[in-house]
């Protein structure tokens, strides 16, 4: 699956995009975040404050309970500040 990061989350993690295989037992966004946080110190720092992170699954806003499956595009980012 394709994972995207934006804004300061992208900077902390050190990449804007990565391909991962969906790990065994990961079925929702919350579990996926737990998994991603273990990938590097940058990931750990990026996911340290979960409540400040928003998410989209296949380009729709999602939350921790949203299901994820292999092949999904999942993006993580801070609250939006456009306009």
């Amino acid at each position, binding site marked *: 699956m394709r994972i995207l990061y*934006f*804004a300061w989350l992208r900077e902390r993690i050190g990449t804007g995009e990565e391909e991962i295989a969906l790990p065994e037992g990961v079925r929702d966004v919350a579990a996926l975040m737990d998994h991603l946080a273990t990938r590097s110190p940058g990931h750990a720092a990026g996911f340290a404050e979960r409540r400040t992170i928003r998410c989209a699954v296949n380009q729709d806003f999602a939350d921790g309970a949203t299901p994820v499956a292999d092949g999904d595009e999942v993006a993580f980012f801070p*609250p939006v500040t456009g*306009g």
Partner: protein
Amino acid sequence: MLKVLVTEAPFDLAAEAARVQGVGDVGAVASFTGICRADDGLRAMVLEHYPGMTERALTAIAEKAMARWPLSACTVIHRHGRMEPGDPIVLVLTASAHRAAALEACAFLMDWLKTKAPFWKREELADGTARWVEARTADEDAATRW
């Protein structure tokens, strides 16, 4: 008629207004232009976005406005990339037979855009530092009133 555009290029208010004026029985055109401000010693702003999802989110917001108010046209243009103080960032235009629909829809579009479109602002300050703009509770409150 709905138009959504995410672009690095500046936009042309007059041309966009003329476009929505020509559609259907228009008695009212409202517009909102958001402009990069120089406050807090800002030298430039870089707007990052989520290509693909941005267009999708803006289209969904514009469709919501068209469904809720009797609009003959609705245009949303949002720029990304680097902008300096005075540069226009976002343009929303609504056209309707009557003024209340055009004005309300315009305010709605801006409030929803602020909280439901994947853009992130990074400010570069005169002292050489840079910072990501934090989301404002007031924007969230404004979006939930609709």
